[in-house]
């Protein structure tokens, strides 16, 4: 325990990994809460998969593997994917599920095609893009962590600024429209922030499992409270906890990819919350039902 603490503070790799995953956990916890409350949980899945061709194209066009460049490409592709989903839902008779699946798999397929195309060119600079598939926290350097922290900080600042509007949008979009808020523009803003959260997670968790990073903390936090502010705080905490513990596990046991370890840690938190959270927990539910059943089976009082 003490060794771990010392390593967290002084070991270069471990410190970066822990900081990077914590930033990811906090940002994705907060923004994922809004996505889950707005019943757009799987939007994050499509956004993260759609980011892959963006990363590849950014590399092909600039020849640079600088994180900000790649993440900019990812962000643009994610944004384009969202716009396409909206168009498909609005202009055809296909439902949201179908639109999400189409954009997700077509963009990802394109990304895979580009990725294999890049890796087969004999280019000294080519390797390493595939680490975005499952994430590789160990590759984070201090400069990367600073980049991620800046993106995350800006996203969180926007959430603080628009807290009231987002809250209204999440719980009663029609009411917010009737009050004169431009719900369409707010919704685009919120989705863009989710794109930012996805972008932060690409290097640590990878595109495939990023969706759980958005949904998991929110679902876990929702079990503990009925207040949005508390839920956001808890989701950020759970996200950071899962991120740091999963990343540490993967760095210490070096053969395990980071993304899956973080997601397994997160799943554990979700299961514990679902069963044991006060008030909402399934265990208390079960105990309550048992008590009620026993009370019902007691002999009826005598009638006068």
């Amino acid at each position, binding site marked *: 325990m003490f060794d771990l603490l010392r390593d967290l503070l002084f070991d270069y790799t471990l410190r970066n990994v822990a900081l990077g995953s914590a930033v990811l956990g906090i940002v994705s916890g907060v923004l994922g809460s809004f996505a889950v409350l707005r*019943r757009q949980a799987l939007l994050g899945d499509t956004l993260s998969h759609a980011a892959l061709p963006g990363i590849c194209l950014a590399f092909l066009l600039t020849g640079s593997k600088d994180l900000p460049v790649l993440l900019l490409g990812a962000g643009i592709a994610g944004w384009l994917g969202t716009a396409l989903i909206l168009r498909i839902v609005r202009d055809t008779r296909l439902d949201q599920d179908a639109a999400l699946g189409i954009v997700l798999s077509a963009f990802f*397929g394109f990304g*895979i*095609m580009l990725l294999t195309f890049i890796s087969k060119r004999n280019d000294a600079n080519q390797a390493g893009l595939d680490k975005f598939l499952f994430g590789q926290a160990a590759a984070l350097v201090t400069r990367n962590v600073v980049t991620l922290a800046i993106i995350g900080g800006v996203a969180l600042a926007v959430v603080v600024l628009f807290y009231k509007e987002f809250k209204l949008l999440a719980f009663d979009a029609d009411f917010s429209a009737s009050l004169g808020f431009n719900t369409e523009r707010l919704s685009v803003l919120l989705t863009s922030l989710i794109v930012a959260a996805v972008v932060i997670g690409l290097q640590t968790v990878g595109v*495939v499992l990023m969706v759980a990073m958005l*949904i998991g903390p929110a*679902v876990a936090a929702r079990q503990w409270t009925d207040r949005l502010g508390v839920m956001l705080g808890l989701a950020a905490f759970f996200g950071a906890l899962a991120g740091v513990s999963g990343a540490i596990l993967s760095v210490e046991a070096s053969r395990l990819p980071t993304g899956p*370890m973080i997601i397994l840690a997160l799943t554990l938190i979700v299961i514990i919350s679902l069963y044991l959270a006060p008030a909402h927990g399934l265990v208390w539910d079960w105990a309550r039902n048992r008590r009620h059943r026993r009370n019902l089976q007691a002999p009826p009082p005598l009638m006068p």
Partner: protein
Amino acid sequence: MNSGQVILLTGILVASASALPGCFLLLRRMAMMADAISHAILPGIVAGYFIARGPNLLAGFAGAALAAVVTVALVEALQRTGRVAGQAAIGIVFPALFALGTVLVSRFFSNVHLDTDAVLYGNIEFSAFESLLVGDLDLGPQSLWIMGGLCAINLAFILLLYKELKLATFDPGLAAALGFSPVLIHYALMGILSITAVGAFTAVGAVLVVALMIIPAATAYLLTDRLPVMIGLAVACGALAATLGYGVAVALDASVAGAMATLAGALFGLAFLFAPEQGLVARTRRQARQRRRFAVETLIVHLLNHEGTQNQATESAVAHLGEELRWADRVRDEAITRAADDGLIARENGHLALTASGRETARAVMAR
């Protein structure tokens, strides 16, 4: 057959086998369930291999089918608790199972037939090199047998249960009332979906199964209103995407599965834009035509209303019309030109008058 032909044929069979159940999945609005199942079967395959102590085909199939049923059951159980809504339940279950599968793969099977990247986009490129051996008899490429068999099973499933599937898809209430169990049909479809996903998994990987299940079905859905035609078109789109994708992949020396999904997406894009009735271009043109026709009808009804009244002269003045009907000059001039071309109105020094046929048309519009 040379290896190129085997890869191409495998691709076409994977696409056809996937498109068949994909149509029903799409119509039942469960497209993302394909995503969940195709990811979640990974730990099932690994567990099967683990028990069989090696990459055994049947063990993999059994484990994956079991994992698929577990996934569907878990998602539905989570949704029933009332604590996790709709999509969120899917988004909790499949990443957890997939993460478990990936960790197991990198722990126990690294570099043995399954590696974590191949899990995502398969290795159809190797399909030509594994032969199905019965005793000493070489029956040719294994992938062709597997995917051909799955095509046959899926086709038989749809032909045998066509009526039930159709009813349960479009009107589950009526299906239940008539005594078909929608739940049974639901799980049967999930079963078919999972064995298709397993078969396609080794060829094209977890994510691109989804592409071949959903995208051709969605493309076909934009092209027709009839279920049998939709199924046929979906298979055709899938096969076309596989063929073109193979060509592109060979030209670029890139992943065949990735190129197949990309081409499927491109075909969907074409249908989205140019489908005869549902397409964006057709819709836009139809709206423009309706707008023009409505303008002409508004114009002649207005003229009919004021025909023979005191203020006919002012109301039929071209200069007055823009103000009266709140039309911009351009809209007004277009409507007048069109109505005049159709012989509905006549122009006389700045005033409009209905012709006989215009009067008749306006009355018909009013009677509608």
